[in-house]
Structures are given as C-alpha cells and as structure tokens.
C-alpha cells in the first residue's frame, strides 16, 4: 500500500480558511491528506502546536495566514512570521526535515493558491516518507 501522509493544517479564519472554502466553492481538486484546524489568526499558533503535531504523528504541518499587511488584526501575522520562522529553525536544528513544516500566506480570494499549495506540499511529504522522528509510538 502506498504511503498516505497525514498533514495537519492550521489556518487563520479570515484569509486561509476562507481561501480553502473558496477552493471548494470553485470545485478545485486537491489531495485529502490535509486536516485543517481553524484558528482566528495565524498569530494564535503557539510554536508548541507545531511540535505537538509532529509528536501526534503528523507527517507535515502547513500553516496558512493572511498576507503580511492584510492581517485582520493588523499585525498578527507579522508576529507570527517571526515566531514561526524560529519554530522552523528549531525543527531543522533538532533534525526534523525542513520540508515537513511550511508557512504560506493565502488570502481569502486565493482558492487556487490554496489548492496548489496543498497539492505541492502533499507531494513533497509523500516523497519525504513517514515522519518517525518526533512521533510518539
């Protein structure tokens, strides 16, 4: 049986989650490996959520927020950008494959981009294979 990755998505309510809805409304097809948690803003994402996701066995984690400058809360994603960048560096230095964690800015009107990112990311995770390093068995 081929490897079907489990990918956790965390999307902000105003942009990426709405963008994901738009992808659906316009019937764009993308792989079903992504499961999205909705939060109000990408700045809500505690770095420990990401570590935890990998411990829970996520093969990849995708964070989506508004484009910098378009944050519904003004500056949330500008903080998130820094905090998630550090999260990424920590993951990398701990030995996690850098490709397993990705942050994308996807606006409410970018259903296309959402579908494209999910397709691309799922493919990348598929190539990386199962994530075993952090997973608690």
């Amino acid at each position, binding site marked *: 049986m081929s490897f079907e990755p*489990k990918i956790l998505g965390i999307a902000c309510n105003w942009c990426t989650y709405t963008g994901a809805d738009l992808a659906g409304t316009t019937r764009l097809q993308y792989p079903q490996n992504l499961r999205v948690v909705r939060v109000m803003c990408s700045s809500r994402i505690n770095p420990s959520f990401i570590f935890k996701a990998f411990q829970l066995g996520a093969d990849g984690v995708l964070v989506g927020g508004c484009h910098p400058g378009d944050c519904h809360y003004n500056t949330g994603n500008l903080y998130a950008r820094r905090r998630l960048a550090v999260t990424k560096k920590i993951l990398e230095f701990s030995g996690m494959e850098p490709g397993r964690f990705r942050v994308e800015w996807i606006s409410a009107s970018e259903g296309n981009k959402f579908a494209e990112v999910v397709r691309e990311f799922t493919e990348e995770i598929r190539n990386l294979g199962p994530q075993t390093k952090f997973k608690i068995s």
Partner: protein
Amino acid sequence: MSRIGVFVCHCGLNIAKTVRVSELAQFAATLPDVVVAKDYKFMCSTPGQEMIANDIKEHRLDRVIVTACSPLMHEQTFRKVLSASGLNQYLLTIVNIREQVSWVTHDIDEGTAKSKALLNGAVNRARLLAPLTSRVIDVNPDVMVVGGGIAGIQAALELANTGRKVYLVEKNSTIGGHMAQFDKTFPTLDCSACILTPKMDSVMQNKNITLMTSCEVSEVKGYVGNFDITVKQKARYVDHDKCNACLACTEKCPGKGVSEWDEGLVKRKAIYIPFPQAVPQKPIIDRDACTYFIKGKCRLCEKVCEQKAIDFEQQDTFSTMKVGAVIVATGYDLMDTKPLVQYGYGKYPGVYNALEVERLFNSAGPTGGKVTMRDGKEPQAIAILHCIGSRDKNNYEHCSRVCCMYSLKFAHLFKEKTSADVYQFYIDMRAAGKGYEEFYNRIIEEDVKFIRGKGARVAESADEPGRLIVEAEDTITGKFIKLPVDMVVLSPAMKPRADSKDLARLFNLSTDKYGFFMERHPKLAPLSTMSEGIFIAGVCQSPKDIPDTVAQANGAAAEALTIVVKDKMELEATTAMVNPASCCGCQNCVRVCPYGAPFFKEDKGVSEINEALCKGCGLCASVCPSSAIIARHFTNEQVLAEMEGLMEF
C-alpha cells in the same frame, strides 16, 4: 462526561456524493460521549433544524456538532438553534465537510476517511468547549469629533442633527480647516467661503455641538461605547465667556504675528482672529508675538476691553469627556518643499506653494485677490509644477489626488485674473471624478499650455535678472525644456498632520509609513479602524478632495451612530483572559496586543485583559510563555485536543 449530538448533513448530493454520510454518522456514534448521531438531507432546512432542537431536548445534549458546510456559511444559523433550545450557542461545533471535503475530491473513500478524522477532532474539541456569554455594556450616546475642517464640521453637524451631543475638538482657534483658505473649489468654481461659512455658523448655533477650539486630545481611556477622553484647553488669554467679539483689542494691538491663514504671506496682530469669518469670532493672544509676554509691559488690549475679558494669567486646563464613539478627521499638511532645493522654494521669491496661491486669489487674502507677486508685480508667465514630492519614491509614493485638479483651477484663475501665459508641468493628468474630465477639457480650451514632464529644476535666469527658468524633459517630444517664467507654483504632496503619529498612539490607530491612519479594511471598512468605536474621515486617512471628504464624513457619522443609537451593546464573547495564578508578569501580552487590551497590574505583578478591547485574535495566548492566557473558544486545550483527534485517524 459530555452528551454530544452529531448531525451529518447530506446537503442534497453536494456532500453525499463524495462522503458516505450514513457511515459517517455510524462512526460518530462509536466515539466517546456521542449519545446521538444522525444524518439528514438538508440540516439547514426547517425540519433539519427542528430535528436538532428536538434531539437537544430528548437526549439532553450539552454539545452539538453539525457536520455540514463551512462555519462561515451556517454557523450563525445553527447557533440560533442552540440558543432557542436553551443551549449556549458557543457549544456548537461545525465540521466543514462540504467546502473542504466533498467539493474538493471525487473519491468517496478519501472523502469519507477525511470526514471521519475531522469529525473525531471536532468531538475532542467539543468536549472541552465552554459556554460563553457576551458581556453587555452601557453605551454613552455622545460622540467626539476630532478636527474642525470640512470633514469634522460635516460629521459633527450630521450627528448633531440626529440629536446626539457632539464634542467638536479643534486645535486652532477657529474651525474651517484648509477649506477656509481656498478661494474657489474645482470643478464647479463655486466660492469656497460661500459654501463653508454657513456650515461653520451652523456648528456655532447648534445646541447639540460643544465647540472646543484651541483644544487638543491629551488622553484616551476606555473602549467602544465608553471612552473617557481628556482634552487640553490651551490658554487663549481671552475669556471667551466674557468676550463680546467687539474686536477693539485687535485694532489697538501693537504686536505682530505671522498670519497662518494667509500662509505667512502677511502679518497679523498678536491678539487676533485668524480671519474675518472665523468661528468662534473671538480673539486669542499669540504668546510668541505679544509685546506683554515678550517684554513684560503693554497690556493695551486689556485697557480697551470693556468686558474685562483679557486674562494674561490664563493656564491650560484639562477636562474629560465621556463619549461612545469618536471620529478622527485631522486632515493634512502640505509637504515642506524647502528641502527639495532644486525647486528653490524659500530661495526665490517667485516660487510659491499651492496654498499660498490659494490666498493670492482670495479677495480677503494678502493682495485683496489680485495676483501680484512678492515684488508687487503681476507675473507674465507662470509655471505650475505637479507632483512635487508626490509619486516620488524619495518622498511620498502616493498620488495626492487633488493636485491635478487644483492646478487646473489655478490655471483658470490665473487666466481670469492676469494676462500671463500659464504652463502645466505634469506627469499624468488625473481627472477622475464627476465633471473633472470636462473641467480639464475646458482648461485646455483656455489656452493653458500642458507640458508632459515633471519639473526637474527651478533656477534663476542668467539673462533676465529676477526671472526664473523651469527645467524639464517634455516626454512627448523627448526634448529638454528650459522655460523662462516669472512665477512658479509648486503642488506639494499632501501628508498627514505632523502630530498624526501621536494621535495614532492616543487612539491606538495604526498608520501607514507616512502616518495616514489605516482603515480596518481597505474596501469593506474604509471608515472603521482596528480600534472599535473610532472612525476616520477625510485626508487623515488618505489624500482626497472635498466631495470625497464630505462623503466620508457623512459615512463616519453614520458608522458612529450605529454604535451610539443603542443604549447597550454586546461585546465579543471569544475574548482572552488571564489566569493570574499562572501569569509570570513578563508583559509579552501587553507589548504585542494591537488593541491595548492587556495591561499590567504593577501591584500584583500580573497582567489583566480588558475584555471590552479584546478582539479575540489569540496572539497574546501564543506569546504567553506560561500559558496563563486563555483564548476563549480557541484555548490551548481545545486546539491540542482537536489536533489529536485529527491525527488519530
């Protein structure tokens, strides 16, 4: 132990085509705490809603999960079902299996599997949901308008006419703003004073408006519906309650100040009213120009004042107003063009900026409406240079929007009042607006010369002393032009008031890099700000002309009304709170919150959150290292539980 009901919607075939809905409901029934799980064709239909309502009662449900379309679609619908059934509306969870599952796959196995994972996450999360109640607060019915230009005047009048009490706060000693300086307005060329002064008088006459001139906001506390705003009344040295506006003092005064209204082109007295139609019609003393304040003796004004209104001992005073909403309409300054040395402003007397020229045309202006230059001569050739500092990466990137039109207006007035040749140096002509293109065409007909090229330099003529040479590249012919003229008019960039950043800090507004206030949403909320209850109108938001400014002012007044017409208002329920037992006093929350909701209690060493200011973004919760902040409805536990549920299958 929770009692969870799961309701799976087919959405006709929208969902059922690629998700095995009955299998999903059967799966739900196996999950811990799920006491009832059903699927139905259209959950949002009346029978669907009734089914949920019945099951809430019958099965004593304390959590409801609707597995259907996006929460952005029907969350409100189903929340109402819960409320009507006596269940707190926040105990609802929506699982989005339409937009994010059935519509994005053709594979029913995949769709069903993903739906199960999502549902499992939702059950985990639902178990941890807490009932939330919105706090209801009293709303103060009054409004403050900051800035007494045309935007502030318009907004104040609109609000006052609905019966609201309005505080109109103006920094200067009169209202009227820049519009009071203009002679004519484009494109109709009606007289600015004729349309403005009646409005200024209406403000004065309106019983609902408290006019506060020579005043500045010094502190803003509170939140939407309940602002406490402290205003500084700057000392005027004239008791306006006693003054009867006879203006005898201004005649006798030996002091000489610079007339701001006339853009410094003439002097005024030290005790003065800025211009004849000023509102209020009562003088103030300019400390820096007053002989008494400078030399310690004079007090002539005091001697001639029969009302004993002069008070040299007057101090700044502070008073606090309680209002429910605020409109900020603080307008603009023109960019100081002196640093752009290539244009010679301040060096060559023949170089004027746009506002100075407005005054030259005005019959109440320094020249009585005659176009004569600083040397008293009438110009024979005039160059109007557009985009000075605007559309300029080195200064202001934005287009100031009104310069093209007022430059055309100037051209017309020059033609009317002089026999000079008039040249326009422009990059692009922008005449978007009702009647603007027509006005442009009309000016072309008036024998005004248009040179498509930005004025690059103004220099003194070597051949004809006193004359100026404008250098530019005519981008149509590609030729480099050196045009001798007598007068150069610069159309400088409009920029926010110098103190706009201070004001932004006071009102917790964000600004762009130049200091223009940021609207909540560039398209859908152009008058709201990120600070609830604070609205913006006019050029303080971005450059615009009078019609747009007035339209915004009306809009802002309506927005403010939506808040203050209600006696009470509900606050966001999904706010954050601090658990003081876990707070380590790091103040990260205080530093990051764009709304100023968290504050530090020095005595207890912990932060607290003013829930009235909180918008529920959750940033504070994620920067809180000791997890002391609970972001309601998106708590750490809820998110972690959902994640665990999503990853289980």
